């Protein structure tokens, strides 16, 4: 199996965010919100850092 680097980031973020959401909050709505927050931060930071590295390498 050879997913693209972005697919690997999305899968990693999805599973890690699910566990973070369930374990770090008490109620299902708060779990969902925190999981979504972590997912966005994971993927968003990967995209931003990718662009930073791209611009540095030019």
């Amino acid at each position, binding site marked *: 199996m050879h997913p693209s*680097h972005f697919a690997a980031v999305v899968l990693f973020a999805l599973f890690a965010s699910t566990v973070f959401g369930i374990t770090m909050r008490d109620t299902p709505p708060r779990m969902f919100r925190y999981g979504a927050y972590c997912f966005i931060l994971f993927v968003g930071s990967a995209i931003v850092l990718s662009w930073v590295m791209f611009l540095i390498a030019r």
Partner: protein
Amino acid sequence: MSTTPNKPAASKASEKGFVYLPLIAGWLVPGAGHFLLGKWIRGALLAVSIIAMFALGLAMQGKLYTSAQDILDLLGVAGDLGGGLLYVVCRALGLGSQPVQTTVADYGTKFIVVAGLLNIIAAVDAHNLRTGRKS
């Protein structure tokens, strides 16, 4: 008027049985600690997430750490051991024994380590539910 204090269900449950059972079960089998406490949906989501992450790591030709040559390897072994029986079974079957040769395989190795670490977090969460520290 009754003077009996209302105890939450979790604290009532914590008064009987071996208190570390969800912690140990959750470590050995992802989600099992939550299943023991009747948290079926949480347990299922944790099990699917952790097992899928571990399996994806293996599918990407990730490596299972087997011995510690330096401190980073030692940390890798510790993370992998967090997977509990997943790690033991895969070691017994000889999975994840090939050396890392591609970038994706390196990602796979990290997937396996992080799956183990997430499993430890989930097992500790089950313990907190068991002791009533979390509802």
